């Protein structure tokens, strides 16, 4: 990749949150733990950025306040590091695919760009909301490979 390709080669790095402590009730066989914001965020925070060897959490593309679990499904908003980031769709797709793989199918998922943080947020949101386009994208082997790169566990 040439310098011109990496659009933001010196981004701000944020600290990672510590891993979640296990509570008493989580160890109790009988108790039911509902899926909460933090759990979904934990699934997503280790996704790698396509351009940097950093996670979406470290780049503050995802933060805990923008992952919400509601009655009717899950809302995830992500913030591209710069408003004209061309990787935004890819990042959104990675988030979507990750959620498809790790969440029960009954939950509805909405992935979108945080309002006002990208020049073409409308187009990106539309693409990400379109189930058929997401499925079609994943049939493209090259694209799937790139997404898998972002999702591979790196620890």
């Amino acid at each position, binding site marked *: 990749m*040439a*310098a011109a390709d990496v659009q933001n*080669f*010196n*981004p*701000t*790095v944020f*600290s990672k949150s510590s891993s979640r402590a*296990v509570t008493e009730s*989580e*160890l109790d*066989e009988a*108790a*039911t*733990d509902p*899926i909460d914001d933090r*759990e979904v965020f*934990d*699934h997503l925070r280790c996704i790698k950025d396509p351009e*940097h060897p*950093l996670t979406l959490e470290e780049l503050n593309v995802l933060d805990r306040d923008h992952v919400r679990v509601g009655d009717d499904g899950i809302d995830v908003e992500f913030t591209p590091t710069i408003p004209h980031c061309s990787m935004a769709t890819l990042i959104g797709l990675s988030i979507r695919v*990750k959620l498809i*793989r*790790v*969440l*029960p*199918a*009954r939950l509805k998922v909405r992935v979108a760009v945080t309002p006002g943080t990208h020049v073409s947020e409308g187009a990106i949101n539309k693409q990400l909301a379109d189930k058929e386009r997401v499925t079609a994208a994943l049939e493209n082997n090259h694209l*799937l*490979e790139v997404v*898998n*790169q972002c*999702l*591979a*566990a790196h620890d």
Partner: protein
Amino acid sequence: MCMLSSIVWFHFLIDYSLSTENFSEDLFEVVSCYFPIDYTPPATDPYAVKKDDLVLMLRSSLAAYPGFAPYCLPLLLDKLSSDMQSAKIDSLLTLAECAEPYGAESLKPFLPSIWQAVKKEVCRYMLNALGVLVTFLVDRLKDHHSVIPHVLRGLLASSGCKNLLEEDIASLLRGIFKEVQVQAHMQADRRAVFSTIATLLDHRLTDVLPLGADFVFGFIQVLDGEKDPRNLYIGFRLVCIICAHFPIVLVFSVFQSNKSILDDVLHHILEDCRHHLAEPELKLFAPTACLLQEVASSSDPACCNVLSEVVPMLISQFQAHPQNSHRKALLETLIGFLKIANVFCQAENNASSPLHRDSDQISTLFLSLLSDSAEEMRSVGIHGIRVLTQQPKLLDKNRQTMAADHLVRAALTDGSCQIRKESAETLAQMSLTHPEVIHNEVFPVLLDKLKDGSIDGSTPHEDVLLVLAGVSRHADTGRDAIAHIISYIRDPAACSTHTRLAAALEALLSIVTEWASSGQSLESAGKELVVQLAALARAGRLRVPEGHVKVVCDLLRLICSMVTLSLDVGLGEAGRTAQKLTLYTLVWMFLLQARGSHSEQGSVRAFSVYPAVNGIQSRTRYSSRRVSAYLETRLAGGGDDDAGRTKAFNLWVWISKALVVRAHPRANTFKSKSCAKRRDGPLSRMHCNVRLMYRQRFFLETSPLLVAAFHLAPKDMKPHYLVALSIMLRYIPHQVMLSEFPPLLPLLLESLVCGDADLQLSTLAALSALLTDTPQLLIGHADTIVPLLLTLTRREDSMKLRISALDCLRIVSSLPHQVVFPHQQQVIRQLSAALDDKKRLVRQAAAKTRGEWCILGSMVKN
């Protein structure tokens, strides 16, 4: 072969300065007739002597003795006029190697002829094709600017050629430096220039060095204004090489003002990095700091130069950034530089050390952090002080005292246990470099705290003792500390609770461990300690609480090994007997106390006795006979209830373990009895806690017994045998596993099907260890294992079981692709149920496992 060895001999002969004057001509004659060496080793040569070995060895032989000069130089000149290229090269290289040992006087008469010959060669070489190409390319650099990128690539390609002459290299570099405005070109073209220089520096350093200052100036021009990080990366690496080889450049260009060149280069780098260092929140801060640290560790002058610039810069940035996370990044970088200063700059005298000027500021800075309100900043401060104490002159006496004072307070009273731990570690570090400060400042504070007998005093005695043990790593302080601790234990007013006693013993243990591991010879101290401890035991001051008995036993074991060493050499017969008796007193006191305790406590004691029994090597026979007699009556069970028998069995198992480990003759008796007692049910698992070298022997002897017993056992007893087996499997070495495993696998799989959750858990643990260590054993069984594991992920009753099954399944995904691929869809489908499990931890494991199975076959997975 003979040739090489004779030359080697010859070399030795001269190296050892045997009197060779009288024979120098004869010696020269026998050797020189081989020059130049033309030898191709036969394909079947058993000695594998290469031509190059011979050439090098012969060359150094000729150069080994100055007396050869009058004979050798004419020979070399003669060979220079030969027609064979290799002979000429060999002659020139030999000439180069001989020049120094022969000395200017011997060379003088031949210099005109050498010069003529070399000139002739050079002129002829100039005509070679590569030379022509380079000259052509360099000429094209003067042409139209649109040609230049292509020329640069041509030069890059030719820079990699091995037979490029020194002259060509010089003209190539000069051409680039003179004709090309590097920074006016595109990134890729600039990269070609950097790569060219890098190739030349990497492979032809010696040929570039004569260019000296010209080269460095040219390089500065090339680098000046570079912005692309990838080019900068190469550029920085080149700077490292240039810095590292600067002394050589110094030799070659004595008339240049070299100091200023190094300064120029470093100044340029620092200018380039300055703004990155001012932005600790951005991504490039850390890499830049790393690069500068590399530059600083290239040589002493570079280190001094970089540090004297960077350290004040970092300190002022620290003061400019109010936010803690930024400050922390800055300080951690500063600490990195200080560590480099600990390696370099040591030789420099104090005044010129780059840190000397700022040492006041640095130490004040770190000392002030020690009382910061934020925990992370205190931690950084402590880390900084630790690095500072490693350099002798950075902290003056006054500040050492201040630091020690701060640290001891932090170690005892700080709110965060992390900080307490780090302070104690730093004090321990200080005790090695500044024992007198510890002795004068820290000891009085600690002892004072210990005198305060009240239970709810400001600092728990346990913490004080922990710190005391930490700072006693130095031999002198250690001796004092032990005396203090013994007298503390003796004093009933101070050492008033069980936990205090345990902490005191723990402290003793850690001091003794430190002695043992540092190999200090402290036999006399060890012996004295045994006597003291025995006295304490007799006085009843060693009644430690349950859960801490292990400490005492570890202590005993260590002292035993220390003392047994001295037993055999130092003492007379009477002394030895006395020592043994003291040891027995101690060991038996603990063994027999086991009689009175409750079940679990008994097993803890038994467990702790094990190392002690183990430690007193040759004396175990006596103990084991008495113990076995005692225990057998207990196990036979007369009036005892179940708990009593359990307790006795525990002790039994531990003793037999100690014996098995020692390969003691009585071990077999013990073992067969414990196998017979297996009917006592789940206890049998204790039996399998064997480790280290004896595992294999134990496994080979025991597994047939177990398998046979399994087939005979009544149905409800079978699981116990499986538990024993699966636990044992975890500990045996690979090689044994490979040969012994196949017959056991059906048993293992059976235990996965069988309903007992405990058994399934331990089998899963064994299985995942197998999958990680020896996956080849299980490749053939994936078709059986995967469905079994999938069934287990749906076990309602045990969350742990579901999690281990999922974890196991995740490891299965790393088996070879062709083995797991057929199961991929099935696993992904069936795991979706686990994603909706009611327990979060199960969902977490399921998500991880399903994620792995989803990317099966993708590049990242392979």
